[in-house]
Protein backbone atom coordinates (compact mmCIF):
# COMPACT_ATOMS: atom_id res chain seq x y z
CA UNK A 1 0.00 0.00 0.00
CA UNK A 2 1.38 3.37 -1.01
CA UNK A 3 2.19 5.63 1.92
CA UNK A 4 -0.74 7.59 3.28
CA UNK A 5 -1.33 11.16 2.10
CA UNK A 6 -4.02 13.54 3.35
CA UNK A 7 -5.96 15.49 0.72
CA UNK A 8 -4.25 18.78 -0.10
CA UNK A 9 -0.82 17.40 0.56
CA UNK A 10 1.27 16.29 -2.37
CA UNK A 11 -1.01 14.36 -4.72
CA UNK A 12 -0.43 10.99 -6.37
CA UNK A 13 0.02 10.98 -10.16
CA UNK A 14 -2.48 8.53 -11.65
CA UNK A 15 -2.90 7.30 -15.24
CA UNK A 16 -6.59 6.51 -15.61
CA UNK A 17 -6.81 4.63 -18.92
CA UNK A 18 -9.96 3.75 -20.88
CA UNK A 19 -10.75 0.04 -20.51
CA UNK A 20 -10.44 -2.01 -23.71
CA UNK A 21 -12.86 -4.62 -25.15
CA UNK A 22 -11.88 -8.14 -24.01
CA UNK A 23 -13.79 -9.74 -26.88
CA UNK A 24 -16.42 -8.67 -29.38
CA UNK A 25 -17.00 -5.22 -30.73
CA UNK A 26 -15.59 -2.15 -28.93
CA UNK A 27 -18.24 -0.14 -27.06
CA UNK A 28 -16.87 3.40 -26.67
CA UNK A 29 -19.88 4.49 -24.61
CA UNK A 30 -19.15 1.90 -21.92
CA UNK A 31 -15.42 2.62 -21.92
CA UNK A 32 -16.05 6.37 -21.69
CA UNK A 33 -18.60 6.06 -18.89
CA UNK A 34 -16.34 3.79 -16.81
CA UNK A 35 -13.48 6.23 -17.33
CA UNK A 36 -15.45 9.40 -16.61
CA UNK A 37 -17.11 8.06 -13.44
CA UNK A 38 -13.68 6.94 -12.17
CA UNK A 39 -12.08 10.29 -13.08
CA UNK A 40 -14.78 12.26 -11.23
CA UNK A 41 -14.44 10.12 -8.09
CA UNK A 42 -10.63 10.38 -8.11
CA UNK A 43 -10.93 14.13 -8.56
CA UNK A 44 -13.41 14.45 -5.69
CA UNK A 45 -11.08 12.54 -3.36
CA UNK A 46 -8.46 15.30 -3.68
CA UNK A 47 -5.71 12.67 -3.47
CA UNK A 48 -4.71 12.49 -7.11
CA UNK A 49 -3.27 14.38 -10.06
CA UNK A 50 -4.72 12.80 -13.20
CA UNK A 51 -2.32 12.59 -16.17
CA UNK A 52 -3.50 13.79 -19.57
CA UNK A 53 -4.68 10.76 -21.61
CA UNK A 54 -3.32 12.45 -24.78
CA UNK A 55 0.16 11.63 -23.53
CA UNK A 56 -0.60 7.90 -23.12
CA UNK A 57 1.42 5.60 -25.37
CA UNK A 58 0.39 2.31 -27.03
CA UNK A 59 0.37 0.29 -23.81
CA UNK A 60 -2.83 2.19 -22.98
CA UNK A 61 -4.58 0.17 -25.65
CA UNK A 62 -3.81 -3.20 -24.02
CA UNK A 63 -5.96 -4.59 -21.18
CA UNK A 64 -2.88 -5.60 -19.18
CA UNK A 65 -4.81 -7.90 -16.88
CA UNK A 66 -1.59 -9.19 -15.30
CA UNK A 67 1.47 -7.15 -14.32
CA UNK A 68 3.62 -9.24 -16.62
CA UNK A 69 1.69 -7.80 -19.56
CA UNK A 70 2.13 -4.15 -18.58
CA UNK A 71 4.93 -2.04 -20.07
CA UNK A 72 5.69 -0.11 -16.87
CA UNK A 73 8.49 1.83 -18.61
CA UNK A 74 5.96 3.73 -20.72
CA UNK A 75 4.05 4.75 -17.60
CA UNK A 76 7.16 5.58 -15.57
CA UNK A 77 8.22 7.78 -18.49
CA UNK A 78 5.01 9.79 -18.08
CA UNK A 79 5.57 10.16 -14.34
CA UNK A 80 2.62 7.97 -13.38
CA UNK A 81 2.83 6.54 -9.87
CA UNK A 82 -0.28 4.40 -10.11
CA UNK A 83 -2.07 3.06 -13.19
CA UNK A 84 -5.69 1.97 -13.76
CA UNK A 85 -6.22 -0.51 -16.59
CA UNK A 86 -8.57 -3.32 -17.59
CA UNK A 87 -11.17 -4.60 -20.00
CA UNK A 88 -14.91 -5.11 -20.48
CA UNK A 89 -17.23 -7.54 -22.27
CA UNK A 90 -20.93 -7.16 -23.05
CA UNK A 91 -23.00 -10.27 -23.88
CA UNK A 92 -26.55 -9.12 -24.46
CA UNK A 93 -27.40 -7.31 -21.24
CA UNK A 94 -24.70 -9.09 -19.21
CA UNK A 95 -21.73 -6.80 -18.57
CA UNK A 96 -18.36 -8.08 -17.35
CA UNK A 97 -15.74 -5.53 -16.26
CA UNK A 98 -12.18 -6.30 -15.17
CA UNK A 99 -10.34 -3.47 -13.35
CA UNK A 100 -6.66 -3.53 -12.36
CA UNK A 101 -4.69 -1.05 -10.22
CA UNK A 102 -0.91 -1.13 -10.62
CA UNK A 103 1.88 0.48 -8.61
CA UNK A 104 4.10 1.79 -11.43
CA UNK A 105 7.06 2.60 -9.20
CA UNK A 106 7.31 -0.95 -7.79
CA UNK A 107 5.93 -2.55 -10.96
CA UNK A 108 3.30 -4.66 -9.18
CA UNK A 109 -0.42 -5.19 -8.97
CA UNK A 110 -2.05 -3.36 -6.05
CA UNK A 111 -5.58 -4.67 -6.52
CA UNK A 112 -7.89 -6.15 -9.15
CA UNK A 113 -11.67 -6.64 -9.32
CA UNK A 114 -14.05 -8.38 -11.69
CA UNK A 115 -17.62 -7.10 -11.77
CA UNK A 116 -20.46 -9.07 -13.38
CA UNK A 117 -23.82 -7.42 -13.78
CA UNK A 118 -26.04 -5.64 -16.24
CA UNK A 119 -25.29 -2.92 -18.75
CA UNK A 120 -26.96 -0.37 -16.51
CA UNK A 121 -24.72 -1.19 -13.57
CA UNK A 122 -21.70 0.27 -15.39
CA UNK A 123 -21.50 3.42 -13.23
CA UNK A 124 -21.76 1.48 -9.98
CA UNK A 125 -18.95 -0.81 -11.07
CA UNK A 126 -16.66 2.19 -11.66
CA UNK A 127 -17.67 3.66 -8.28
CA UNK A 128 -16.88 0.37 -6.57
CA UNK A 129 -13.41 0.20 -8.03
CA UNK A 130 -12.78 3.86 -7.19
CA UNK A 131 -13.53 2.82 -3.58
CA UNK A 132 -10.87 0.12 -3.92
CA UNK A 133 -8.34 2.56 -5.39
CA UNK A 134 -8.76 4.76 -2.30
CA UNK A 135 -8.40 1.70 -0.10
CA UNK A 136 -5.13 0.69 -1.78
CA UNK A 137 -3.73 4.20 -1.48
CA UNK A 138 -4.92 5.14 2.01
CA UNK A 139 -6.03 1.94 3.72
CA UNK A 140 -9.62 3.14 3.86
CA UNK A 141 -12.29 2.37 1.28
CA UNK A 142 -13.98 5.25 -0.52
CA UNK A 143 -17.76 5.91 -0.27
CA UNK A 144 -18.40 6.37 -3.98
CA UNK A 145 -20.50 3.22 -4.46
CA UNK A 146 -22.83 4.10 -1.58
CA UNK A 147 -26.10 5.94 -2.16
CA UNK A 148 -27.68 9.22 -1.09
CA UNK A 149 -31.34 9.57 -0.08
CA UNK A 150 -32.88 13.04 -0.25
CA UNK A 151 -36.13 15.00 -0.59
CA UNK A 152 -37.17 16.60 -3.90
CA UNK A 153 -40.40 18.48 -4.65
CA UNK A 154 -40.19 18.22 -8.46
CA UNK A 155 -43.58 16.49 -8.65
CA UNK A 156 -45.19 19.33 -6.72
CA UNK A 157 -44.94 17.36 -3.46
CA UNK A 158 -41.91 16.64 -1.31
CA UNK A 159 -41.10 12.99 -1.97
CA UNK A 160 -38.20 10.67 -1.03
CA UNK A 161 -35.56 9.97 -3.69
CA UNK A 162 -32.38 7.95 -3.99
CA UNK A 163 -29.34 8.73 -6.13
CA UNK A 164 -25.71 7.74 -6.60
CA UNK A 165 -22.97 9.83 -4.97
CA UNK A 166 -22.43 11.67 -8.27
CA UNK A 167 -26.15 12.41 -8.68
CA UNK A 168 -26.81 9.82 -11.38
CA UNK A 169 -29.52 7.14 -11.29
CA UNK A 170 -31.96 9.32 -9.34
CA UNK A 171 -35.06 7.31 -8.45
CA UNK A 172 -38.26 8.38 -6.71
CA UNK A 173 -39.14 6.07 -3.80
CA UNK A 174 -42.40 7.47 -2.40
CA UNK A 175 -45.72 8.54 -3.87
CA UNK A 176 -47.35 10.12 -0.80
CA UNK A 177 -48.44 13.42 -2.45
CA UNK A 178 -48.08 15.03 0.94
CA UNK A 179 -44.85 16.13 2.71
CA UNK A 180 -41.98 13.69 3.21
CA UNK A 181 -38.98 14.88 5.28
CA UNK A 182 -35.57 13.99 6.69
CA UNK A 183 -34.60 10.43 5.67
CA UNK A 184 -32.02 8.26 7.42
CA UNK A 185 -30.51 4.95 6.29
CA UNK A 186 -30.38 1.89 8.50
CA UNK A 187 -26.73 0.96 9.08
CA UNK A 188 -27.14 -2.16 6.91
CA UNK A 189 -28.37 0.07 4.11
CA UNK A 190 -31.43 -2.05 3.44
CA UNK A 191 -33.96 0.37 4.87
CA UNK A 192 -34.71 4.09 5.00
CA UNK A 193 -36.79 5.83 7.68
CA UNK A 194 -38.41 9.25 7.16
CA UNK A 195 -41.23 11.49 8.36
CA UNK A 196 -44.41 11.91 6.29
CA UNK A 197 -47.66 13.89 6.71
CA UNK A 198 -49.46 11.36 4.54
CA UNK A 199 -52.02 10.50 7.21
CA UNK A 200 -52.45 14.09 8.35
CA UNK A 201 -49.81 14.03 11.09
CA UNK A 202 -45.98 14.01 10.95
CA UNK A 203 -45.49 10.25 11.44
CA UNK A 204 -42.29 8.16 11.11
CA UNK A 205 -42.25 5.68 8.23
CA UNK A 206 -39.86 2.94 7.12
CA UNK A 207 -39.26 1.57 3.63
CA UNK A 208 -37.42 -1.60 2.56
CA UNK A 209 -35.27 -0.54 -0.39
CA UNK A 210 -35.24 -3.94 -2.10
CA UNK A 211 -39.01 -4.43 -2.10
CA UNK A 212 -40.30 -0.88 -1.75
CA UNK A 213 -42.49 -2.19 1.08
CA UNK A 214 -43.48 0.60 3.47
CA UNK A 215 -44.92 0.80 6.98
CA UNK A 216 -45.52 3.34 9.73
CA UNK A 217 -43.03 3.00 12.55
CA UNK A 218 -44.04 5.72 15.03
CA UNK A 219 -47.28 7.68 14.88
CA UNK A 220 -47.95 9.28 18.23
CA UNK A 221 -50.06 12.41 18.12
CA UNK A 222 -47.94 15.43 17.26
CA UNK A 223 -44.33 15.25 16.12
CA UNK A 224 -42.55 12.00 15.14
CA UNK A 225 -39.57 13.67 13.44
CA UNK A 226 -35.79 13.73 12.90
CA UNK A 227 -35.28 10.01 13.49
CA UNK A 228 -31.72 8.59 13.42
CA UNK A 229 -30.63 4.97 13.67
CA UNK A 230 -28.11 4.13 16.32
CA UNK A 231 -24.91 2.96 14.56
CA UNK A 232 -25.50 -0.64 15.69
CA UNK A 233 -28.92 -0.44 14.04
CA UNK A 234 -30.79 -1.69 17.09
CA UNK A 235 -32.47 1.50 18.27
CA UNK A 236 -33.74 4.78 16.87
CA UNK A 237 -33.59 8.24 18.46
CA UNK A 238 -36.19 10.81 17.40
CA UNK A 239 -38.24 13.75 18.61
CA UNK A 240 -41.84 13.16 19.73
CA UNK A 241 -44.21 15.65 21.34
CA UNK A 242 -47.13 13.47 22.48
CA UNK A 243 -46.12 14.28 26.07
CA UNK A 244 -46.96 17.89 25.31
CA UNK A 245 -43.44 19.02 24.58
CA UNK A 246 -40.88 18.04 21.89
CA UNK A 247 -38.63 15.53 23.66
CA UNK A 248 -35.95 13.08 22.50
CA UNK A 249 -37.12 9.48 22.68
CA UNK A 250 -35.51 6.12 22.07
CA UNK A 251 -37.48 3.50 20.16
CA UNK A 252 -36.81 -0.08 19.22
CA UNK A 253 -36.67 -0.73 15.49
CA UNK A 254 -40.18 -2.18 15.84
CA UNK A 255 -41.35 1.25 16.97
CA UNK A 256 -41.78 0.20 20.59
CA UNK A 257 -40.80 2.84 23.13
CA UNK A 258 -37.57 2.11 25.00
CA UNK A 259 -36.66 5.24 26.87
CA UNK A 260 -37.39 8.92 27.21
CA UNK A 261 -34.11 10.82 26.85
CA UNK A 262 -35.04 14.38 27.71
CA UNK A 263 -37.48 15.91 30.18
CA UNK A 264 -36.95 19.59 29.68
CA UNK A 265 -39.33 22.48 28.93
CA UNK A 266 -37.15 23.40 25.94
CA UNK A 267 -37.38 22.09 22.36
CA UNK A 268 -35.07 19.03 22.02
CA UNK A 269 -34.61 17.87 18.43
CA UNK A 270 -32.12 16.73 15.71
CA UNK A 271 -30.40 13.79 17.46
CA UNK A 272 -27.09 12.50 16.05
CA UNK A 273 -25.35 9.43 17.50
CA UNK A 274 -21.68 9.09 18.38
CA UNK A 275 -20.13 6.09 16.54
CA UNK A 276 -20.14 3.99 19.74
CA UNK A 277 -23.79 4.85 20.32
CA UNK A 278 -23.10 6.03 23.88
CA UNK A 279 -23.52 9.75 23.24
CA UNK A 280 -26.05 11.87 21.41
CA UNK A 281 -25.57 15.33 19.95
CA UNK A 282 -28.83 17.26 19.61
CA UNK A 283 -30.32 20.77 19.35
CA UNK A 284 -32.07 22.43 22.25
CA UNK A 285 -33.25 25.93 23.04
CA UNK A 286 -33.03 25.26 26.77
CA UNK A 287 -30.59 28.14 27.07
CA UNK A 288 -32.69 30.52 25.02
CA UNK A 289 -31.40 30.17 21.47
CA UNK A 290 -31.00 26.85 19.66
CA UNK A 291 -27.60 25.40 20.52
CA UNK A 292 -26.03 21.97 20.17
CA UNK A 293 -25.65 19.82 23.27
CA UNK A 294 -24.06 16.42 23.83
CA UNK A 295 -25.77 13.94 26.13
CA UNK A 296 -23.93 11.02 27.69
CA UNK A 297 -26.50 8.22 27.57
CA UNK A 298 -24.78 6.13 30.23
CA UNK A 299 -23.95 8.79 32.79
CA UNK A 300 -26.85 11.03 31.84
CA UNK A 301 -25.02 14.37 31.88
CA UNK A 302 -25.69 16.86 29.11
CA UNK A 303 -23.18 19.54 28.18
CA UNK A 304 -23.37 22.35 25.67
CA UNK A 305 -21.15 21.89 22.63
CA UNK A 306 -21.44 25.12 20.66
CA UNK A 307 -20.06 28.13 22.48
CA UNK A 308 -20.33 30.60 19.60
CA UNK A 309 -23.19 31.88 17.48
CA UNK A 310 -26.84 32.37 18.38
CA UNK A 311 -28.45 29.70 16.24
CA UNK A 312 -26.74 26.31 15.76
CA UNK A 313 -28.62 23.33 14.34
CA UNK A 314 -28.62 19.86 12.63
CA UNK A 315 -25.54 18.29 14.26
CA UNK A 316 -24.00 15.29 12.48
CA UNK A 317 -21.39 13.14 14.22
CA UNK A 318 -18.73 11.77 11.85
CA UNK A 319 -18.55 7.95 11.68
CA UNK A 320 -14.87 8.09 12.76
CA UNK A 321 -16.00 10.10 15.81
CA UNK A 322 -13.52 12.92 15.26
CA UNK A 323 -15.81 15.81 14.25
CA UNK A 324 -19.36 17.03 14.61
CA UNK A 325 -20.68 19.00 11.64
CA UNK A 326 -23.52 21.50 12.08
CA UNK A 327 -25.05 24.57 10.49
CA UNK A 328 -24.95 28.06 12.03
CA UNK A 329 -27.04 31.14 11.26
CA UNK A 330 -24.74 34.16 11.02
CA UNK A 331 -25.84 37.53 9.60
CA UNK A 332 -28.96 35.94 8.14
CA UNK A 333 -27.16 33.11 6.31
CA UNK A 334 -26.58 29.47 7.30
CA UNK A 335 -23.09 28.02 6.86
CA UNK A 336 -21.57 24.69 7.76
CA UNK A 337 -19.00 24.27 10.53
CA UNK A 338 -17.30 21.31 12.16
CA UNK A 339 -16.03 21.05 15.73
CA UNK A 340 -14.37 18.40 17.88
CA UNK A 341 -16.79 16.52 20.17
CA UNK A 342 -15.19 18.38 23.12
CA UNK A 343 -16.16 21.70 21.55
CA UNK A 344 -12.65 22.76 20.54
CA UNK A 345 -11.11 23.49 17.13
CA UNK A 346 -14.26 24.91 15.52
CA UNK A 347 -13.82 25.40 11.75
CA UNK A 348 -16.07 27.11 9.23
CA UNK A 349 -16.30 25.18 5.95
CA UNK A 350 -18.63 27.13 3.69
CA UNK A 351 -18.70 30.78 2.60
CA UNK A 352 -20.43 32.99 0.06
CA UNK A 353 -24.12 33.34 -0.75
CA UNK A 354 -26.90 30.89 0.04
CA UNK A 355 -28.01 28.85 3.06
CA UNK A 356 -25.97 25.67 3.51
CA UNK A 357 -27.86 23.29 5.81
CA UNK A 358 -28.34 19.70 6.92
CA UNK A 359 -24.76 18.39 6.66
CA UNK A 360 -24.36 14.58 6.66
CA UNK A 361 -21.13 12.55 6.62
CA UNK A 362 -20.00 9.93 4.13
CA UNK A 363 -19.48 6.47 5.69
CA UNK A 364 -15.69 6.94 5.54
CA UNK A 365 -15.84 10.44 7.12
CA UNK A 366 -13.98 11.98 4.16
CA UNK A 367 -16.91 13.91 2.70
CA UNK A 368 -19.99 15.91 3.65
CA UNK A 369 -23.23 16.16 1.72
CA UNK A 370 -25.61 19.08 2.43
CA UNK A 371 -28.29 21.26 0.88
CA UNK A 372 -27.66 24.77 -0.40
CA UNK A 373 -29.73 27.40 -2.19
CA UNK A 374 -26.71 29.36 -3.43
CA UNK A 375 -27.97 29.27 -7.00
CA UNK A 376 -31.48 30.32 -6.04
CA UNK A 377 -32.92 26.83 -5.68
CA UNK A 378 -32.12 24.30 -2.97
CA UNK A 379 -29.83 21.57 -4.31
CA UNK A 380 -27.68 18.78 -2.86
CA UNK A 381 -23.95 19.52 -2.74
CA UNK A 382 -20.93 17.44 -1.75
CA UNK A 383 -17.55 18.60 -0.40
CA UNK A 384 -14.49 17.20 1.30
CA UNK A 385 -14.39 17.28 5.11
CA UNK A 386 -12.07 20.33 4.95
CA UNK A 387 -14.57 22.29 2.86
CA UNK A 388 -12.74 21.96 -0.48
CA UNK A 389 -13.93 20.28 -3.68
CA UNK A 390 -17.52 21.60 -3.51
CA UNK A 391 -19.76 20.39 -6.34
CA UNK A 392 -23.50 20.18 -6.85
CA UNK A 393 -24.80 16.62 -7.42
CA UNK A 394 -28.60 16.83 -7.54
CA UNK A 395 -30.09 17.35 -11.01
CA UNK A 396 -32.27 20.38 -11.68
CA UNK A 397 -36.04 20.31 -11.53
CA UNK A 398 -37.22 20.68 -7.97
CA UNK A 399 -35.91 21.94 -4.65
CA UNK A 400 -33.74 19.21 -3.15
CA UNK A 401 -32.84 19.00 0.54
CA UNK A 402 -32.37 16.70 3.56
CA UNK A 403 -29.66 14.45 2.12
CA UNK A 404 -28.72 11.24 3.95
CA UNK A 405 -25.72 9.07 3.11
CA UNK A 406 -26.01 5.27 3.16
CA UNK A 407 -23.34 3.15 4.80
CA UNK A 408 -20.62 1.35 2.87
CA UNK A 409 -22.17 -0.93 0.27
Amino acid at each position, binding site marked *: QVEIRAPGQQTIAVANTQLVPLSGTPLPAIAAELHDVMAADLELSGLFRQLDPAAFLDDARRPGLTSSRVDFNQWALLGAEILIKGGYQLQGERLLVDFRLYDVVHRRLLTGRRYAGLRRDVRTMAHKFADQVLKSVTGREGPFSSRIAYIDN*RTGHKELYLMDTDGANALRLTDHRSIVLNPDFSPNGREVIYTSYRRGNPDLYRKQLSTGQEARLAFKKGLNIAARFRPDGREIALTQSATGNPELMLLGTDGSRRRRLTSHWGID*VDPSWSPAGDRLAFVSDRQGNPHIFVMDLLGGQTARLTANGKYNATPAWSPDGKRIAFTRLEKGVFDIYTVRPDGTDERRLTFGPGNKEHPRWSPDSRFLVYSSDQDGRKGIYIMRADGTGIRRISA*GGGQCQHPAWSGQR
Partner: protein
Amino acid sequence: CAKKPAPVPVTTDDQAAAQQAVQGVEEMGAGETGIGESMIGEESMDDSMSMPQTVASLERIYFNFDRYDLSPEAQAILINNAEYLKANPDQKVRIEGYCDERGSDEYNLALGERRALAAQKYLESLGVAGDRLSVISYGEEMPLDPAQNEDAYAMNRRAEFKSMP
Protein backbone atom coordinates in the same frame (compact mmCIF):
# COMPACT_ATOMS: atom_id res chain seq x y z
CA CYS B 1 -54.57 -4.16 -5.17
CA ALA B 2 -53.75 -0.93 -6.94
CA LYS B 3 -51.63 -1.11 -10.09
CA LYS B 4 -48.02 -0.61 -9.12
CA PRO B 5 -47.22 2.99 -10.07
CA ALA B 6 -44.28 2.84 -12.51
CA PRO B 7 -41.20 4.49 -10.99
CA VAL B 8 -40.89 7.94 -12.51
CA PRO B 9 -37.48 8.52 -14.11
CA VAL B 10 -35.93 11.80 -13.09
CA THR B 11 -34.64 13.59 -16.17
CA THR B 12 -31.61 15.79 -15.75
CA ASP B 13 -31.38 19.24 -17.11
CA ASP B 14 -28.49 20.45 -19.19
CA GLN B 15 -26.28 20.82 -16.16
CA ALA B 16 -23.39 18.45 -15.59
CA ALA B 17 -22.48 16.15 -18.44
CA ALA B 18 -21.69 13.39 -15.95
CA GLN B 19 -25.34 13.22 -14.83
CA GLN B 20 -27.58 11.38 -17.30
CA ALA B 21 -31.20 10.42 -17.68
CA VAL B 22 -32.16 7.73 -15.26
CA GLN B 23 -33.69 4.34 -15.78
CA GLY B 24 -36.64 4.23 -13.46
CA VAL B 25 -36.84 0.50 -13.92
CA GLU B 26 -36.03 -2.00 -11.22
CA GLU B 27 -32.29 -2.39 -10.88
CA MET B 28 -30.94 -5.87 -10.96
CA GLY B 29 -28.24 -7.19 -8.71
CA ALA B 30 -24.80 -7.22 -10.29
CA GLY B 31 -22.17 -9.78 -9.58
CA GLU B 32 -19.70 -9.05 -6.88
CA THR B 33 -21.90 -7.65 -4.14
CA GLY B 34 -25.28 -7.70 -5.80
CA ILE B 35 -26.06 -4.07 -6.38
CA GLY B 36 -29.19 -3.23 -4.46
CA GLU B 37 -32.34 -2.70 -6.36
CA SER B 38 -34.99 -0.34 -5.34
CA MET B 39 -38.40 0.41 -6.64
CA ILE B 40 -41.58 2.08 -5.60
CA GLY B 41 -43.80 0.03 -3.37
CA GLU B 42 -47.49 -0.46 -3.80
CA GLU B 43 -49.46 1.99 -1.74
CA SER B 44 -53.16 2.21 -1.28
CA MET B 45 -53.98 5.81 -2.07
CA ASP B 46 -56.56 6.67 0.57
CA ASP B 47 -56.29 10.35 1.28
CA SER B 48 -57.36 10.60 4.90
CA MET B 49 -56.12 14.19 5.18
CA SER B 50 -59.47 16.01 4.82
CA MET B 51 -58.94 19.41 3.25
CA PRO B 52 -59.94 22.04 5.86
CA GLN B 53 -60.90 25.51 4.71
CA THR B 54 -59.65 28.74 6.31
CA VAL B 55 -62.60 30.22 8.11
CA ALA B 56 -62.80 33.88 7.06
CA SER B 57 -63.70 35.18 10.47
CA LEU B 58 -60.95 33.19 12.23
CA GLU B 59 -57.95 35.41 11.55
CA ARG B 60 -54.36 34.15 11.54
CA ILE B 61 -51.82 35.49 14.04
CA TYR B 62 -48.10 36.25 13.59
CA PHE B 63 -44.94 35.66 15.67
CA ASN B 64 -41.43 37.10 15.98
CA PHE B 65 -38.39 35.13 14.76
CA ASP B 66 -37.69 32.03 16.86
CA ARG B 67 -40.48 33.04 19.29
CA TYR B 68 -43.82 31.51 20.22
CA ASP B 69 -45.12 34.06 22.71
CA LEU B 70 -48.32 35.94 21.81
CA SER B 71 -47.95 39.62 20.98
CA PRO B 72 -50.67 42.07 22.05
CA GLU B 73 -51.95 42.12 18.45
CA ALA B 74 -52.08 38.33 18.39
CA GLN B 75 -53.99 38.29 21.66
CA ALA B 76 -56.50 40.82 20.33
CA ILE B 77 -57.10 38.64 17.25
CA LEU B 78 -57.50 35.56 19.42
CA ILE B 79 -60.10 37.34 21.50
CA ASN B 80 -62.13 37.94 18.33
CA ASN B 81 -61.56 34.36 17.24
CA ALA B 82 -62.81 33.14 20.62
CA GLU B 83 -65.94 35.25 20.28
CA TYR B 84 -66.61 33.74 16.87
CA LEU B 85 -66.05 30.20 18.17
CA LYS B 86 -68.33 30.72 21.17
CA ALA B 87 -70.98 32.02 18.79
CA ASN B 88 -70.59 28.83 16.66
CA PRO B 89 -70.39 26.08 19.29
CA ASP B 90 -70.34 23.16 16.83
CA GLN B 91 -67.38 24.56 14.89
CA LYS B 92 -64.23 22.42 15.25
CA VAL B 93 -60.94 24.12 14.43
CA ARG B 94 -57.47 22.86 13.58
CA ILE B 95 -54.72 25.29 14.59
CA GLU B 96 -51.73 25.06 12.22
CA GLY B 97 -48.32 26.35 13.36
CA TYR B 98 -45.83 27.67 10.76
CA CYS B 99 -42.35 29.19 10.70
CA ASP B 100 -40.25 31.13 8.21
CA GLU B 101 -37.85 28.97 6.26
CA ARG B 102 -34.72 29.91 8.15
CA GLY B 103 -33.47 27.39 10.61
CA SER B 104 -33.39 23.65 10.74
CA ASP B 105 -36.59 22.14 9.48
CA GLU B 106 -36.99 19.90 12.51
CA TYR B 107 -36.44 22.72 14.98
CA ASN B 108 -39.04 24.68 13.05
CA LEU B 109 -41.51 21.79 13.21
CA ALA B 110 -41.15 21.88 16.99
CA LEU B 111 -41.41 25.67 17.05
CA GLY B 112 -44.50 25.59 14.81
CA GLU B 113 -46.15 23.22 17.24
CA ARG B 114 -45.29 25.55 20.12
CA ARG B 115 -46.98 28.41 18.28
CA ALA B 116 -50.13 26.41 17.61
CA LEU B 117 -50.23 25.24 21.25
CA ALA B 118 -49.81 28.82 22.49
CA ALA B 119 -52.87 29.86 20.47
CA GLN B 120 -54.83 26.83 21.67
CA LYS B 121 -54.08 27.49 25.34
CA TYR B 122 -55.01 31.14 25.00
CA LEU B 123 -58.32 30.31 23.29
CA GLU B 124 -59.03 27.82 26.05
CA SER B 125 -58.28 30.48 28.65
CA LEU B 126 -60.93 32.60 26.89
CA GLY B 127 -63.50 29.84 27.43
CA VAL B 128 -63.29 27.87 24.17
CA ALA B 129 -63.67 24.13 24.90
CA GLY B 130 -60.40 22.31 24.32
CA ASP B 131 -61.98 19.32 22.59
CA ARG B 132 -63.02 21.57 19.70
CA LEU B 133 -59.40 22.48 19.01
CA SER B 134 -56.67 20.31 17.45
CA VAL B 135 -53.08 21.28 16.71
CA ILE B 136 -50.58 20.48 13.94
CA SER B 137 -47.23 21.94 12.94
CA TYR B 138 -45.97 22.34 9.37
CA GLY B 139 -42.78 24.15 10.38
CA GLU B 140 -41.40 25.89 7.31
CA GLU B 141 -43.51 23.91 4.87
CA MET B 142 -46.19 25.67 2.78
CA PRO B 143 -45.04 29.28 3.23
CA LEU B 144 -47.65 31.96 2.51
CA ASP B 145 -44.95 33.90 0.67
CA PRO B 146 -42.12 31.77 -0.75
CA ALA B 147 -39.85 34.81 -1.26
CA GLN B 148 -36.63 35.04 0.74
CA ASN B 149 -36.86 38.46 2.43
CA GLU B 150 -37.87 39.84 5.80
CA ASP B 151 -41.43 40.68 4.73
CA ALA B 152 -42.02 37.13 3.46
CA TYR B 153 -40.44 35.66 6.59
CA ALA B 154 -42.72 37.79 8.79
CA MET B 155 -45.77 36.62 6.80
CA ASN B 156 -44.79 32.99 7.24
CA ARG B 157 -44.24 33.04 11.03
CA ARG B 158 -47.91 32.42 11.79
CA ALA B 159 -50.67 30.24 13.20
CA GLU B 160 -53.72 29.61 11.05
CA PHE B 161 -57.19 28.46 12.05
CA LYS B 162 -58.87 25.93 9.74
CA SER B 163 -62.44 24.73 10.31
CA MET B 164 -62.72 20.96 10.32
CA PRO B 165 -65.77 19.18 8.86
